[in-house]
């Protein structure tokens, strides 16, 4: 199968040197263009991503995942021939097959934005506490944005060029997920959810979002 070459996969990257090479290599088997936004990692993540064939955009100082996403989107839009933009996590939680299927749905004209949701099928194993926190986030996002989604904090998204160009992520830290949903709602874009599997490996659990971080997210959303 020929690699998709009208899509840029945006991977925000911060201290994931152990896995990012594998993630980028996996993506590159299906997507010709991968951009990793290295958010001033201190473990050589950027070099690992570059070796695996990604374009690496390096923030000179650490700005946060939201800022990295916006930078990656800006890069994708600056490149000729970009029709779709995918956001994908660097820690190996997401499946390339899911991303491909989501771009396929965009290509069919079914929607302008496809958002991944881990709650639409039984593939993802979520601990009860994490499930409760994520549910609370969904309730909050639904209440504040008027967009009803089942999983507000999923890093796997696919969107058309037009939607990507309309994004303006100002929440540098973690609250950007809700902000993106809000902007999609406000923009009146046609969106659908797509069932995706989030793989909680030992690595991603050890590194990933602690439930406590939801305190930060809530604070950032209130005092934005």
């Amino acid at each position, binding site marked *: 199968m020929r690699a998709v070459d009208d899509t840029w996969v945006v991977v925000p990257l911060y201290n994931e040197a152990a896995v990012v090479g594998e993630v980028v290599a996996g993506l590159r088997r299906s997507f010709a263009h991968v*951009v990793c*936004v290295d958010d001033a990692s201190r473990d050589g993540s950027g070099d690992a991503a570059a070796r695996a064939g990604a*374009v*690496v*955009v*390096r*923030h*000179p*100082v650490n*700005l946060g995942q939201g*800022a990295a996403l*916006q*930078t990656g989107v*800006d*890069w994708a839009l*600056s490149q000729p021939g970009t029709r779709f933009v995918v956001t994908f996590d660097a820690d190996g939680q997401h499946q390339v097959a899911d991303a491909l299927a989501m771009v396929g749905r965009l290509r069919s004209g079914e929607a302008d934005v496809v958002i991944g949701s881990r709650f639409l099928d039984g593939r993802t194993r979520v601990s009860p506490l994490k499930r409760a926190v994520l549910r609370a986030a969904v309730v909050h996002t639904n209440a504040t944005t008027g967009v009803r989604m089942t999983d507000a904090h999923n890093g796997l998204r696919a969107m058309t060029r037009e939607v990507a160009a309309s994004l303006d992520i*100002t929440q*540098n830290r973690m609250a950007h997920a809700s902000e993106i949903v809000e902007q999609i709602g406000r923009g009146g874009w046609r969106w659908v959810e797509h069932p995706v599997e989030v793989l909680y490996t030992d690595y991603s659990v050890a590194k990933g979002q602690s439930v406590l971080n939801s305190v930060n997210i809530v*604070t950032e959303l209130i*005092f934005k």
Partner: protein
Amino acid sequence: MLCVSVCSTLGEVSGHDGGVESVLIKVLLMAGIGVVALLFVRGHATARHQAVRRVMVVAFAGLAIASLLFPQTWQSAAELLGVGRGTDLLLYATILVVLGFMVTSYLRTRDLQRQVTVLSRRLALDEAAAAQHQAAQAAQTAAAPVAQVTEVPRTPVVVDEGPVFAALPAPRPGSWA
């Protein structure tokens, strides 16, 4: 969160000697807190905010001198407002000022953060684009070796750094940390 702690401090202070006696001071303090909250919600620092800030600094200096010259003013103002002592009134005013300062510096830090973000992003994108351009050129030269011959070699720019710069030790990476 800081706001909550300051507000509760305010409550404790007023509760210390049996609550704020007069409605007047309560109204004044609440109005002050309201103004601070409004500032917080309204967000962006404008030129008007800056002007207000400057006027307030001048007013502060004036009041400070006045209270040195006429220390009993605070006492009479406190009596007028129904606060027991002048020092208490001063304390309330200080808390309000601290609250206002917190909000304005928060807003300014946030604006600064946004500017840093925009600047860093521009820099990161430009550097990546330059690297991409360079890689593309290198690939082109490798693909067509004939082009290499016709290319005019660029004269290296010699920068005379002078003895002052030469004497300086080169900064070690990570020496700032």
